[in-house]
């Protein structure tokens, strides 16, 4: 599998410019870069959420893709359980399949009684935990993870990373955006540094992270 992306612009803000990137099946790539570098926009374009303003994206049409990001998309008036049900059904599960997973999701989130309360009463950490647990429902070929491991406290973050590792088979392609080096070192084989919508560096995780840190 490969992506070819060139001359892409991310909407009105033009966050991506002349970006060219090829990703093979089974690669696990960490995307780094400062705020506004275009990381989330790139994930959305790869995920087919919206097209590039210019250029082309090629993705094997047989491969399924899921973009997991945190805290967005919840309906504040619905409980955590109902939001999880909705998220599962929107990801393609039947109502019955979705309902079967609700207790496991609730348990994983460690929300306790809050799982039955409206999401608008949640702290940002609680929303993140719910987002992570509902995001890991689907078994897709390409996983696009936008800060999804920056969840809750230290203990929960560790649990989240382990849960993700359990879900990753060698043929699964992962692109991870994360501001913590440790998560990228643990999960990825390759890192790409984006700056002002262009690839500034692309190579092994150790090399790219070192260059990125030196530039900070």
């Amino acid at each position, binding site marked *: 599998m490969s992506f070819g992306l060139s001359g892409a612009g*991310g*909407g*009105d*803000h033009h966050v991506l410019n002349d970006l060219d990137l090829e990703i093979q099946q089974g690669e696990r790539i960490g995307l780094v870069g400062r705020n506004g570098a275009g990381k989330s926009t790139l994930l*959305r374009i790869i*995920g*087919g*959420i*919206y*097209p590039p*303003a210019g250029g082309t994206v090629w993705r094997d049409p047989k491969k399924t893709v899921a*973009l*997991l*990001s945190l*805290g*967005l*998309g*919840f*309906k504040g*008036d*619905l409980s955590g359980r*109902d939001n999880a*049900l*909705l998220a599962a*059904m*929107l*990801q393609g599960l039947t109502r019955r399949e979705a309902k079967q997973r609700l207790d496991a999701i609730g348990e994983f989130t460690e929300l306790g009684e809050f799982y039955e309360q*409206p999401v608008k009463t949640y702290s940002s950490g609680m929303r993140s935990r719910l987002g992570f647990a509902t995001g890991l429902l689907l078994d897709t070929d390409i996983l696009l993870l936008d800060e999804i491991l920056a969840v809750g406290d230290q203990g929960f973050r560790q649990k989240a990373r382990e849960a993700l590792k359990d879900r990753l088979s060698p043929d699964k392609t992962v692109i991870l955006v994360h501001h913590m080096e440790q998560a990228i070192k643990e999960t990825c084989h390759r890192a790409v540094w984006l700056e002002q919508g262009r690839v500034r560096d692309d190579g092994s995780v150790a090399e790219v992270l070192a260059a990125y840190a030196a530039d900070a």
Partner: protein
Amino acid sequence: MARLSLKAEAQRYYLGYLWWVLEPLLWVGVFYVVFYELLGSRTPDFLMFLAVGKLMFIWFSKTVNYAGTSLVSNEGLIGRMDLPKSLFPLTVILECAYRQVVVFLLLFVLILADGAIPSGLWLWLLPLALVQLALIIFAGCVASVLVAFQRDFALLINLGMVFMMFVSGVFWDINDIVNESAAQALLTWNPIAFLLHSYRQVMLWEQAPDVAHLLVLGLLALAATAATLYLMGRYGPHLARRVVSA
């Protein structure tokens, strides 16, 4: 999604699902006081006349207003998942349709309590409601796209619904227009005025609606709805970019 939203909405208010009945009744009550008690409307059986017009008009205006903001209010979900964009206005439309079933029942109760006897003519209510639903889907989807492109449209749509209320014979009778060609033009070019008039013909005046007009309107509404849903599917990713980057 529609059912979950309705459940959440009911939980938000102390009187819960009771508002489905209370709100339309209060609307009719307010209009009755203003137009009958204060302004002295001379339309015969004004309360029932108003109830039919207002309750069926609210279905259209409220749904289109809500559907208009359905894409922008789901920005988070649209930026996360590649979902059909028509899903969002259609969910709102379904939500309002569930509610309208209750309003329909309320209307039947009011009319029967007023002494009307249902006849076979009432079967015309089904095609009338289906044509109205097709119009709502068309207008709701178009409104959602307009607001996604420029949020100011939400205000204009709101204003447009007030304008529609004044020109659709909600609280006045089209038969009272002295200039016959003007009345005919209103019924021809304003589908909501035609539908409200037809509902009253069936429920209050024991008349069949203008079948040819209803058929043409139904076909046009279906064609416009199908074209809108197709275009929303075709340009869904572009719409998503607009919603997320706005």
